[in-house]
């Protein structure tokens, strides 16, 4: 049985700038990280590996430098790391992205081992659409279990899973047959920290790169051409400049009083 984790390299910090002309994120000079939700998906896959001895594959679609993200996954203990990278994959929206990822999962299913679970983060912190995971499930005709905060039960032999979904103000316990696609929330687990030995081995490992020659997808269904979504404008809301009240260093009590008065005047401090 194989578990596939989909991970994405995203720009770090909340300070991402938007290019007003191209309506895309300015990525220059901003360090990349593994999408934080995906680290929880990865951790859960590795815990299942520890428990059941199954294999874990991490896949990521992105530019060549996204290899770093997959090396992090290797350092944490995944068995296979595959980068889906090709110029024709570029400019993809969530539909085109899920087409590529689904094709890669099918290939792993056919060539490596039967895929039992696909794990994704609930969303990425750059796009925040939460559509790619469900998109993969639809393309592959897998059951989709979103917002999972606990795998209650998993039986690979009987091909059954029971999860807890974290919804607003309540939890939902859901049974589903395998194969299934799960998107996970951060409450699911605490990601592990890599061992140095594993990091060193990962640094030397070669990450497999699959391009469209490997996947043989119709170019009308991938990349910019396969993306029906077009972005008319992205912008950061203007932040209204705040003001500094009093002198909190010299007179903390008086300044706190000022703040309370201010909040009460604006009716923001219900008493």
């Amino acid at each position, binding site marked *: 049985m194989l578990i596939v984790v989909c991970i994405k390299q995203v720009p770090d*910090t*909340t*300070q991402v700038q938007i290019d007003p002309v191209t309506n895309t994120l300015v990525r220059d000079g901003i360090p990349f990280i593994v999408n934080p939700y995906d680290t929880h998906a990865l951790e859960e896959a590795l815990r299942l590996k520890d428990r059941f001895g199954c294999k874990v594959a991490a896949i990521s679609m992105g530019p060549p430098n996204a290899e770093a993200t997959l090396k992090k996954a290797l350092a944490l203990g995944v068995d296979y790391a595959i980068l889906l990278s090709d110029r024709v994959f570029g400019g993809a929206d969530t539909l085109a992205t899920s087409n590529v990822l689904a094709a890669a999962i099918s290939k792993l299913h056919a060539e490596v081992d039967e895929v039992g679970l696909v794990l994704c983060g609930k969303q990425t912190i750059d796009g925040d659409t939460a559509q790619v995971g469900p998109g993969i499930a639809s393309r592959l005709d897998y059951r989709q279990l979103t917002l999972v905060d606990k795998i209650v039960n998993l039986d690979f032999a009987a091909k059954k899973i029971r999860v807890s979904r974290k919804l607003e103000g309540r939890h939902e316990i859901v049974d589903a047959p395998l194969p299934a696609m799960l998107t996970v929330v951060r409450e699911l687990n*605490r990601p592990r*920290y890599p*061992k*140095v*030995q594993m990091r*060193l081995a990962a640094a030397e490992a070669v990450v497999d790169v699959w391009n469209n020659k490997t996947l043989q997808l119709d170019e009308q269904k991938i990349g910019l051409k396969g993306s029906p979504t077009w972005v008319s404008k992205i912008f950061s809301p203007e932040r209204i400049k705040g003001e500094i009240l009093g002198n909190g*260093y010299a007179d903390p009590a008086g300044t706190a009083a000022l703040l309370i008065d201010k909040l009460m005047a604006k009716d923001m401090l219900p008493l």
Partner: protein
Amino acid sequence: MTPNPLVFTPLLLASLAIFALGCWKRLSLISLGQPEERFDNIGTRIGDMLRYAFGQKRVIAKPFGFNHFIIFWSFLILVIANTEFILNGLFPHTIKLVKLPFELYVPLAFMIDIASLLALIAVTVAALRRIFAPPYPEARTLDAFFILGMIATLMLASFTLNASDLAAYMFKSGADPVSFLATARKIMPVSALLAGLLPPLQLETIHAAAWWTHAVALLAFICYLPISKHMHILTAIPNCFLHRLEKPNTQPREEFTVGNTFGVGSVDRYSWKDLLDSFTCTECGRCQNVCPASITGKPLNPRAVIHDIKVNLLENGAALKKGATSQTPLIGEAGEGSVSEESIWACTTCGACMEACPVLIEHMPKIIQLRRHLVETEVKFPEELLNLFENMEGRSNPWGIAPSERTKWCNQLDIKPFDRDTTEYLFYVGCAGSFDSRNKHVSVAMAQLLDKAGVSWGILGKDEKCCGDSVRRLGNEYVFDKMARENVAMFIERGVKKVITQCPHCFTTLKNDYRQYGLELEVIHHSELLRNLVQDGRLVLDKTTEEMGATVFHDSCYLGRHNDVYDAPRAVIEAATGVPPAEMERNRNTAFCCGAGGGRMWMEEHVGERINLTRVNEALEQKPDTICVACPYCMTMFEDGLKDVKANNVKVRDVAEVMAEAMFR
């Protein structure tokens, strides 16, 4: 009444064999350790050995140390007497000191007699101390009393022996007892006194009894020595010779290549010198009596760490020699011979243990090696460190704040970036000075003072990265190595030569740790620079400030103990306030840690009394209006501690703030 060589010789040979076997069994284990260079600068090493081993410099730093000084030197003098005794036992009547020329014999006999008396008094004092006021409660060991009793027995037997010799000679020569003993008392005061008291008819029996008591005690001592803590008699002198000549304020680098092991998880991963240290420990307990963790009730006890390393080596040594793996884990809860994880994480790396150790044992690097194993190989560490490690690696600061916010502290100031051609000093602001809202005030004060003094300085701005101190002391050497390489490359590329730091952790890391990466920077702590600027007349104070009221100064471990900067911050305070700061009971090299070093800043403190509260209360004993510090971590620990004890009227100020107060207000 002669000793019988036919009995004594085999006994002596057997004892020497047991002694040699005991030494070999233990000391040969040292060869299991990893290589380490400790034979450079022989001249300095000999000097240090004379100072610390023979001069007992650290031993006599404490009142009771003088007692040990007496035992040590008596022991050396009595080597002569005991050699004579053994040779006499092997070849009766052939070799005797009394056959020496009279001018040589008299002072020698006098010295031996007095040394024996002093040793007897000293071991009695030592035994009484152990009974009534032991250095630490567990010091009342059978081992200790046995050895003290043995030494006392040797001294009493040797007096009796000499006395019976004197009396026998007196009767045999028919000399007048009164005048004979009067003369003898000038040569061997104690023995002669005793000689007058011995019953003349039983002299032969007394002599034989004393001789054999002495012989048995001496041989037993020889047999027992290698298997007790008194092994230090053999190891302390070489250990002082082999100590690390530079202050042990850094840890060795690790080489990150596939197949290497990281940190110490098995006792043979320690260096041979670490293992020698474990055989040198005298269990005097001075380290535990100054350790902030031990004192405040944490499970860490530096003495026990060294002892556990020894026990672990003895238990696993045989297996390790054969290439097998350890049975007793070095890290774990297996009791004696294992160091618990909790105690490993309790260390603040303040260095007080190493400063106190009379035989120059290096505790701190050993604890950090254990941390390295836990972090790098086992990935077991307190959970609050996970965020720290990720923040440090991902965003190069402990809080994970966006690096672009590093210059927010100076938004209102006109500060130039460092430029290799026009700037003399890089002001390395540090993470606390850049991000911590309280500490930003110190950075601003420094900026204003530097400008006022006309210093040519600049900053790296958003390109500044964390120095990596916390991750190194926490054993995450892999991440430290990456951070250090990046910083060293940047400093070289930007042409940085002189650096000002306002944080002792940045200070020590840039100054001492980065030297391991081939970067020799001229690093100056802001307190030193301010002191120099005042001395050189570049910062002229036309008035002193009264705003601070009564001040007391707290030494930062990484400024003081680890780098010997004690006077500069005090001089700055005195210049600004007109009076030197008050001193806490524990100050300068015996100062008590604030509790934040060694990465403890980022960890919870659940067990025992809080270290910072202990120190805050000590500071409050001086009735200060202002507690002066020279470190951002100390600042935080004191501010928090003062809130906890509700001492709201006491301020905490960095020395730069004190100076700025006098200069600008």
